[in-house]
């Protein structure tokens, strides 16, 4: 009976090649052997940890996961919208760089535990240079004597050449104008690849998969597809997988991070915040939880906040692998810090892939000065007037100037609730964007010279000048992507 089920399961997978089908047979057979009692392979629980959710994320919590969560997979997601574009600029200065700056720290700590427990790693820490990241990883494996291990670099997300060649035809998602309408220097264009490219790398036996730009959730979906042999067109199953992935792709945001509001939403032991992991069943039922004894909190409230984070239409959340429908999801607290996710659904994947285009657009000058004591707001207002006058006198050209009173209205402008009393101190902040660097510099300098040439009794100002690396989006046809898995065996 069981064998027939097994045969059907593998046969159903018509859209995989013979090598992968053979691999699936072996996996299924392996699972049937290691399952004890009358449990079948479908009872298997796949454990996937979320070890990072942005480039600079903390290192230690992932190591704790690697040590204590008995993970099958550890995922590090480290790319925000702009991260690859910044990494590309870094790579121009330093050709062997351009991948996550904390890769070495992360792997030095976590790899020995992963190796010991048989945990595979999937990560987009490759950023603008997955090959460079794989090379560094191989060095670490040799240094720690962890070999033999297989490291895969996944290439194919860099579509800069295609975008430059088609800059008149490609339309910006922001305003419908051609990509060619942008003023400034385009420095990067990376497509959000799907789980399929990582499934390919896992099928080739990679212990560590390193990518550039891929869909954040796809990093978690790939192990599910690979281990359970989910069909790449079983949209509901993929939708369930992505619902679980969405829950942890922002790491500790589901386990009590960015949640605490004392007296309203209290989070225990936030200092020792534990990062989450998923327990995935073959039918797409998923439990999100964390290591016992760590700080933080996982309940319906944290999961609901996270499920809606960065979502527009909850019935139509577009990922490269499937369009996810969250509207029928139910969340049940099934134990302490354990929430079961059920009811995610899916629709066919989009025919086009989103591309983030990085462009150098100009400069921002920024400076801040703080006034305290009686009359501090009046002195700050006088300072604003003086700076505006001096910018005119100097002929400083700014595309936009913003003046904030930190402590009064910097975040919410005129929508801020009024203060009942005058604040004891207020920080005055100027930020201006300019085409030319010299104008941004002049703005910052005019704030700096308020000490001695402006109102009385202030702090010493701080100032900074930065280049604007703006991100725009275009859509490209899926078929232009030719991904490549470069596998290296490290002894």
């Amino acid at each position: 009976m069981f064998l027939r089920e097994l045969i059907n399961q593998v046969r159903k997978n018509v859209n995989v090649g013979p090598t992968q089908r053979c691999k699936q047979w072996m996996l299924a057979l392996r699972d049937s052997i290691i399952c004890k009692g009358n449990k079948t392979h479908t009872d298997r629980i796949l454990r996937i940890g979320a070890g990072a959710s942005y480039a600079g994320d903390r290192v230690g919590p992932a190591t704790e996961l690697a040590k204590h969560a008995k993970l099958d997979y550890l995922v590090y997601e480290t790319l925000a919208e702009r991260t690859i574009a910044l990494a590309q600029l870094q790579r121009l200065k330093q050709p062997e760089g351009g991948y996550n700056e904390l890769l070495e720290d992360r792997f030095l700590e976590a790899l020995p535990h992963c190796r010991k427990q048989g945990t595979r790693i999937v990560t987009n820490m490759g950023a603008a240079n997955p090959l460079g990241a794989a090379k560094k990883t191989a060095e670490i494996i040799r240094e720690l004597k962890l070999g033999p291990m297989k490291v895969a670099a996944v290439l194919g997300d860099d579509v800069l050449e295609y975008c430059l060649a088609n800059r008149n035809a490609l339309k910006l998602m922001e305003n419908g104008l051609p990509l060619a309408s942008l003023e400034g220097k385009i420095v990067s264009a990376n497509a959000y690849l799907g789980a399929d490219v990582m499934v390919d790398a896992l099928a080739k036996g990679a212990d560590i998969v390193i990518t550039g730009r891929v869909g954040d959730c796809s990093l978690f979906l790939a192990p599910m597809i690979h281990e359970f042999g989910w069909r790449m067109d079983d949209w509901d199953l993929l939708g369930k997988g992505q619902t679980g992935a969405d829950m942890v792709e922002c790491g500790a945001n589901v386990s009590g991070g960015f949640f605490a509001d004392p007296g309203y939403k209290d989070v225990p032991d936030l200092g020792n915040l534990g990062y989450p992991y998923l327990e995935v069943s073959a039918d797409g039922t998923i439990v999100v939880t964390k290591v016992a004894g760590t700080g933080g909190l996982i309940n319906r409230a944290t999961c609901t906040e996270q499920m809606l984070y960065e979502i527009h239409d909850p019935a139509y959340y577009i990922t490269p692998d499937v369009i996810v429908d969250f509207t029928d999801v139910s969340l049940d607290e099934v134990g302490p810090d354990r929430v079961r996710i059920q009811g995610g659904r899916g629709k066919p994947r989009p025919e086009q892939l989103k591309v983030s285009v990085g462009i150098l657009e100009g400069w921002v000058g920024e400076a801040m000065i703080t006034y305290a004591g009686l009359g501090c707001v009046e002195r700050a207002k006088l300072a604003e007037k003086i700076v505006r006058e001096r910018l005119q006198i100097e002929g400083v050209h700014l595309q936009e100037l913003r003046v904030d009173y930190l402590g009064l209205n910097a975040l919410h402008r005129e929508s801020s609730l009024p203060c009942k009393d005058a604040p004891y101190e207020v920080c005055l902040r100027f930020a201006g964007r300019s085409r030319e660097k010299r104008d941004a510099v002049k703005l910052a300098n005019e704030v700096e010279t308020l000490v001695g040439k402006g109102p009385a009794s202030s702090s010493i100002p701080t100032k900074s000048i930065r280049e604007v690396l703006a991100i725009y989006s275009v859509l490209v046809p899926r078929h232009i992507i030719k991904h490549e898995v470069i596998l290296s065996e490290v002894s």
Partner: protein
Amino acid sequence: MKTFYLRELAHARSGDKGDINNIGVVAYEPHYYPLICQWLTTDRVKAHFGSLVKGGVTRYELPKVHALNFVLEGALGGGVTRSLSIDPHGKSYSALILTIPIEVPPDLAQELMQRGRQPIDEA
């Protein structure tokens, strides 16, 4: 009728995509959800955010998890990567939506006050 800040009835989280901000608003209790749906119209939210939101506001309902999702267009100063704000992502917008005043019927007001939640005028 007593008025409470939305904060007494719901919690929220906001996120970014380009120049668009979204805010998930989640009722603390399922039976608060109908009142929140009734009060948090797209017009009220748009008015509350004033000049912060240049474009339209769309609302999506998720009754199974008693939550609303608001999508605010033209809300991030021209886009996260170009904005001059110290909060370019609008991550603090979740705190702003919770300052919307809600008129609460007497029985629910009673329940809130028993939980230590104070109406605006008596806060």
